[in-house]
């Protein structure tokens, strides 16, 4: 459905993508996971025709993106990171406008708008101006506006940033429903829970490079099946981290937390705690985290996803 080959993109002296390649199959839910600035949005931007790559090719539904952009655009729906709506128009007017750009007839559009508004729980507020909506409601309309032409592929760039739990859950339900109906979804996020919950396959992107990709299980294996021990306490310093690293531990420090990584945590955990005590750390809280995308990312990059 989508083939990306050796994409490179620089903004001035900043290299955003260093030659990434991947394939997304029809009906697949593909997640691009990475910290802020890793290159996720640039990748989505290129695939959705918004950004021109320096080199590389993208094929969407059999069409070369550069040669046949219009055909590619017709089969994709894009949910941008920002809420891109006309605040002075009602939800219905917004949807009528966005839908009509894709050549959907007015009668079809009206039926689809009604269905979509019901799906997103906004039918009762359909004639209110968007500026009167909450952030979560706007997010829902933002997604709805990308679905009216029934795209084969949906690009979603961090669609749940900054919204209330109710809207988040509703979006999750819709996304799962679309996936079940066979829509190919490309989803960028830095929330590992979302990637773990939805994605058939995940590409982990960091510094403009895909450092690993596969199913969740495959990624766990690639990350060495490592679990993590998170220690919160007083007296955690860079100096202590260096000492512990020189003692042979794999760990990172972030926001007053020490995160140890180990493929054999059960055995090594007591030693880690003792080492922390000996280093002078006043331990306040200990948390064991099973193998997940966070630990995979940590294991592969030495950094945390939220860094």
């Amino acid at each position, binding site marked *: 459905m989508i083939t990306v080959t050796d994409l490179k993109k620089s*903004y001035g002296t900043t290299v955003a993508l260093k030659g990434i390649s991947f394939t997304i199959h029809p009906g697949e839910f593909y997640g691009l996971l990475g910290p802020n600035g890793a290159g996720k949005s640039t990748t989505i*931007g290129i695939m*959705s*025709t*918004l*950004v*021109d790559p320096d080199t590389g090719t993208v094929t969407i539904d059999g069409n070369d993106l550069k040669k046949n952009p*219009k055909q590619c*655009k*017709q089969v*994709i729906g*894009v949910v*941008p*990171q*920002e*809420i*891109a*709506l*006309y605040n*002075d*128009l009602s939800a219905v*007017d917004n949807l009528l*406008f*966005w839908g*009509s*750009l*894709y*050549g959907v007839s007015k009668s079809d559009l009206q039926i689809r708008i009604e269905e979509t508004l019901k799906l997103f729980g906004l039918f009762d507020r359909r004639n209110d*101006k968007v500026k009167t909506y909450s952030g979560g409601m706007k997010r829902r309309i933002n997604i709805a*506006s990308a679905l009216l032409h029934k795209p084969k592929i949906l690009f979603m760039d961090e669609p749940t940033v900054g919204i209330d739990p109710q809207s988040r859950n509703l979006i999750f339900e819709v996304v799962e429903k679309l996936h079940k109906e066979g829509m190919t979804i490309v989803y960028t996020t830095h929330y590992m829970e979302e990637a773990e919950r939805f994605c058939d396959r995940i590409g982990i992107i960091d510094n403009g490079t895909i450092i690993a990709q596969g199913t969740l299980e495959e990624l766990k294996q690639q990350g060495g099946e490592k679990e993590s021990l998170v220690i919160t306490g007083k007296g955690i310093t860079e100096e202590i981290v260096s000492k512990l690293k020189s003692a042979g531990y794999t760990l990172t420090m972030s926001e007053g937390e020490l995160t140890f990584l180990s493929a054999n945590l059960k055995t090594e955990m007591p030693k880690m705690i003792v080492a922390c005590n000996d280093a002078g750390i006043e331990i306040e809280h200990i948390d064991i985290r099973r193998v997940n995308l966070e630990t995979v990312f940590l294991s592969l990059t030495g950094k945390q996803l939220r860094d």
Partner: protein
Amino acid sequence: MLTIAFKDIKIFFSDRRGLLMAFVVPIALITLFAFAFGGAGRGDEKPEPRQLVIADLDQSNESKMLISSLDSLEEFVVKTTTADSATELVLKGKRAAVLLIHQGFGDSVNKQGTPVLEIRSDEGEGPEVAILTGALFGRLNEYVGRMKMGTLYKRSGDPPPQGILYNPQPAPNLELKQTSVIKQKENSAGLVHAVAGTAIMMLLFSVTAMGMGMLDEKAEGTLKKLIVSPINPSSILFGKMISVNIISMMQLAVMFIFGWLVFGLDVPSHVPALLIMIFCTAYSCSSFGVFLVSFAKSRAQVQGMSTLVIMTMSALGGSMVPSFIMPAFMQKLGVITVNYWGVQGFYDIFWRDLPLTDPTFLTRVLVLICIGTGLNLIAVRLFKRNVLALA
């Protein structure tokens, strides 16, 4: 394209502050300017040399001497032509007044009679005509007086007394007849100026504000969504242009209807010409607004610049005050502004009563269309480079 245009129009009418700026503020300013300029006159002198057109029907030595004397003065730049051409210049609004030296002028001087000179003028340009006539009368009286004295002493054989140039007696050496070729009527020139000048200036502000909507779309992310849709990127700009044009035409139409209903501007007698000029002015102003916006990458960049550019253009182009008040070089600069051609076009319609087919009127129409098209062509290129460049 039309979808984008209708969407923009819908947004425009939902914005109360925008409507206030587009319609109510200009109406308030028109009212103010109409009271300020409607029929008011001025008599202050201008140090800049004045263009003086003279038609010499006498072709005598005396008339040529008079023209030469006037031409030697720093205060006038003299140009000679035929009587018909001179009158035409006034009728077409190219000169406020011209001087005619009638046949028999030389004979009258030689016979110590009272030669008659004629000033043909546009009554609507009252203040400018008054200034010109005031400056001219003293000089004419002086030179005709000299010529008459010279003739007298030449005849008697005595030299003329030193130090006496002419006799500033109450009885003048000549008669200066004034003829209005365009007379005051229902559409006073001041009223036409108040409505047209203000409407165009305010239109420039509002089209720039509307154009800035494109930069807002960029900032808010809707432009990205438009770009990823299957429409041609140029359609985004053209759609915006259509909406700005339609709203501009409506705005100008409302201004003139207001001028008609409240101040008695004779709109019903000039509907076809008015529609043409409204279309051309709106097109030209809209293009200017889009052009100004296409220079910038953000709203903040446009805001400061637009106020300055529009106020300067309005001052130079005669939107704020009649251009004759300004120095000559500024009057010349005014020709490069949309305001000048628009204001003059509305003068042609309401004051000069020029027919639709008149070359002067058609020239103004053509210039406005050319300005609009030229600005649009540049705007498209700049827009692609500055506004569409999201990456």
